[in-house]
């Protein structure tokens, strides 16, 4: 059975970006900063810190910046305050609470205090659980959280212009261009 590292390397190679070695670096991510550098307005400090760590695990810094540098936790905090539906907020907060509870039950410590491999292991559990739940037509907090992070990241300036390609004024349309010349997916349609 493949371990996670192999699985990641395999997928990274499959999409043609594995040779830079960042997949490995991502797994050995630097520990989260001890304190937030921003003030949450809708989330509590604890929720925001946990979100900050989980968002970076979902979209880590690789050859391009990750969710933290893109401001994704702030994006989600703002949307909790003025955009998400109550059901979405409840699911998000329930998910964050569960992550901490699971971390404490398994390792006796808050999620943010765990070593990265333990954090990844917990998220892997949620991801697999979510796969089963979705197959049965049920909602699960983890993919919902991933969606929030994904939207926040790829619509951020960092995500759109560095992880993806963004052209505010293309000037022309060319219908058949080798992908290699463009390199990445377009940020907007």
């Amino acid at each position, binding site marked *: 059975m493949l371990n996670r590292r192999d699985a990641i390397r395999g997928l990274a190679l499959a999409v*043609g970006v594995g040779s830079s070695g960042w997949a490995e670096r991502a797994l050995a991510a630097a520990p989260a900063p001890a304190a937030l550098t921003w003030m949450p307005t809708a989330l509590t400090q604890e929720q925001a810190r946990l979100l900050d760590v989980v968002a970076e695990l979902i979209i880590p810094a690789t050859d391009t910046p990750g969710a933290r540098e893109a401001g994704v936790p702030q994006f989600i905090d703002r949307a909790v305050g003025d955009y998400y539906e109550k059901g979405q907020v409840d699911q998000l907060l329930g998910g964050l609470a569960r992550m901490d509870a699971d971390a404490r039950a398994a390792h006796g410590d808050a999620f943010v205090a765990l070593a990265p491999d333990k954090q990844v292991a917990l998220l892997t559990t949620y991801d697999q659980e979510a796969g089963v739940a979705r197959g049965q037509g049920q909602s699960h907090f983890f993919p919902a959280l991933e969606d929030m992070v994904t939207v926040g990241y*790829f619509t951020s300036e960092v995500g759109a212009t560095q992880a993806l390609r963004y052209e*505010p004024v293309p000037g022309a349309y*060319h*219908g058949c261009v080798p992908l290699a010349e463009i390199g990445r997916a377009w940020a907007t349609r």
Partner: protein
Amino acid sequence: MANLNGRARRKNTYDAIVVGSGITGGMAAKELTQKGLKVLVLERGRMVRHLEDYPTAVMDPWQTKYPQGQLPQAELAAHYPVQRRTNYTMTEYTQHFFVRDDENPYTEENRFDWIRGYHVGGRSLTWGRQSYRHSPIDFEANAKEGIGVDWPIRYEDLAPWYEHVERFIGVSGQHEGLAHFPDGHYQPPMEMNCVEKAFKTKSEARFPERRISIGRTAHLTDPTEEQLALGRTKCQFRNQCIRGCPFGGYYSSNSGGLVAAERTGNMVIRPNSIVTELIYDEKAGKASGVRVLDAVTKKDEEFHADVIFLCASAFNSTWILMNSTSSRFPNGFGNASDQLGRNVMDHHLGVGASGEAPEFADMYYSGRRPNGIYVPRFRNLGDAATKRSDYLRGFGYQGGAGRSTWDRDLGSRAQGAKGFGAARKAALTQPGPWTMGLGGFGEILPYEDNRITLNRDKKDAFGLPTLSFNVTMRENEIAMRRDMQTAAAEMLEAAGFKNVKGHDGGYAPGLGIHEMGTARMGRDPKTSVLNAHNQVHECKNVYVTDGAAMTSASCVNPSLTYMALTARAADHAVQARKRGDL
């Protein structure tokens, strides 16, 4: 006192009044002012100036207040329960170009999606820009099949005016040389992408009668001197047209017709002016002007002119006629036929097929093409081979191919575990599979009992009566939809696409945003409201040239036809006025 009234009346008197400033109002203003008439344009909504009043036109994705520029559900539910129904009109990028439903009520006896923009330029700012001519068979079909009434004009009557409008607005497109899909005057066509080109080759090999063309769209790809002089430039392939274009790359009233009219020095435009009724002069036997409710001061005012053009959009022009009662017109202005408000038409859509392209994984595209491919109607063209026994008329497809991007695993779009971390991130920064979709736009027949009526019991925010809608799909449309789905899937299968799926997401009348027919043109005043020149049969100095005039719907996007009818009617009005015939 008499003198004062005389002066006030002179101050408010013009050669012509144009009601509405959208795609037809702008064209009427341009044509009438360029032919020397002093014109007052009355617009019920606020001013929108080209360039200055497009607040979201150059916003980047990270500058929105809400995720992906979507509005909170509570705000949509409270203020935009109808405008949101399209799933694309009501976003942070476009909110200011659509009405608040809570302030603009109407009654849905059956569901009707009335998507509106009340401001200078109207929906010419947010339209889909697809620009096709009706074909000769469109103008003949009613008479041949005994449906509704005969159009009082034929293709040849409108052809020079189509060309006149195409030259002014600028249409990019490909000549196809098909009788049932008349070519116009085009700027260079936009390019198909790899998958679309392959689809064209393979599908046409199997179904040669189903021509696949690039969309004909009102974008400048090789602007003329006239267009450049108006301040318009080439399309920049941003595909953010619905926010207003800072380049004037697509045609809108704001960037085109109204600018041309303004430059003649013959136009006065008055926003916030709700025309509540036509004023009928019994003695003269014609309309002498319009009554206006100022949306800001809430005061009534009258304006006078020799000629009046109603270009307020189909249902609002009809509303004005319905609300203009007098002893001469007790049942609505020019409504001896009782056809006013009847024969509501739209294009039914939301049905088609999609599939995945098996090749070109190493190919992509650059630029955001504000246009798709077009498959002109290929059913019931008058020969045995295309004849359908299950329905009349036909449909066209609009569609295109593209590669999915970072949002492809959001929500329910992906099944199972999504994964997370560096691998998923890397995958999402690469384009996903190519998919291709075809969506039908089908003709709806005119039915007298598909109608809007004036509801004097339910008032809007200004205390004005409102409209009530009773419009439903009939057997012909339902049978056509089945074919629309099947034929699309067939073409994708023939072209070797994988995982081909037909879809019918349902359709509610109005969703095509192509409302038509409620003051139709015809030969006989007993069965139609307008004559062959868009004049009200019973009052020749009132012209109606928006969608209300349409005698049948065709299956092609209608704005080009409205504009051609408007330019033709304006020419008629100017000549008739010169002769003293109005």
